[in-house]
């Protein structure tokens, strides 16, 4: 029998890996995937709590988070495409037109 804290630890580790990816990565596509990973870690925690408390509301939240993730991926990838056309690079350090 696996305690619920084990699932929460896995979720925390995945979230941490995602955060480190967002902070360290310079490839914008890997950066986007790290954000998706962080959303998924939150989902895992929601499902685990839903099971521990025996309330199904967590499933509805996970469903909504999945929808937001899909919308974010669609709009974000469209922006990546447009920026790549203008700058010819996927390096986020070169997207510095708004830097003062």
């Amino acid at each position, binding site marked *: 029998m696996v305690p619920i804290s084990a699932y929460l630890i896995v979720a925390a580790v995945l979230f941490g890996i995602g955060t480190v990816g967002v902070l360290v990565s310079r490839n914008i596509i890997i950066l*986007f995937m790290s954000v998706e990973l962080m959303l998924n870690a939150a989902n895992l925690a929601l499902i685990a709590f839903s099971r521990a408390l025996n309330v199904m509301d967590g499933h509805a939240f996970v469903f909504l988070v999945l929808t937001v993730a899909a919308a974010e991926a669609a709009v974000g990838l469209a922006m990546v495409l447009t920026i790549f056309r203008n700058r010819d690079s996927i390096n986020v350090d070169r997207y510095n037109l708004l830097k003062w």
Partner: protein
Amino acid sequence: MSLDTVIFIFSAVVAVFGATMMIVQRNPVASVLYLILSLVAQAVLYIQLGSVFMGAILVVVYAGAILVLFLFVIMLLNLRGTEDLGRGSGPLNQLTKYVFAVLFVVELVFVVRAGFFAETIAVSVLTGPPATDGFGSVENVAKLLFTRYLYPFELTAVLLLAAVVGAVAIAKREREDFATEEGEAAHSGDKPASPPMEKVEG
């Protein structure tokens, strides 16, 4: 060690391994494939927690749709595998992000240590006792979504519509005769219209 524990440890290790490999890979295509590996392992964890429907949704929607969209964009960009991303901008910038990354890992270690000693907290219920009948089934998820969470559910439809329209509007290629002066300056290569504050080594 029961079968339950073995399955949990195996899928947890695979999930963390896939996530780690995703952020250290240079090739974006390999990165996407490692994220898919991690997601499939997470779907196993969902199913182990009794939410079969959400596990299936995770594989179908994430691995099947969103990550294929990522692959599609990578191949559309024609990145030729490994573009050398260089050393990044200034030393202060570098230092800051590594300091934050290390801080976060330290924080994570504290969370994990707290998690191991959390047995007295009310939420650390074992997943051993069977949940109520039909926990996580399609029927119960649908009942929840169409009764208590009906308005949020309908709003997600609006959100998806807005995202689709926005994605098309953003990614649409500008016609040449509409190109403004700023647009042409941005198109003319790496030199931005405004002088950059510091020289960036790509």
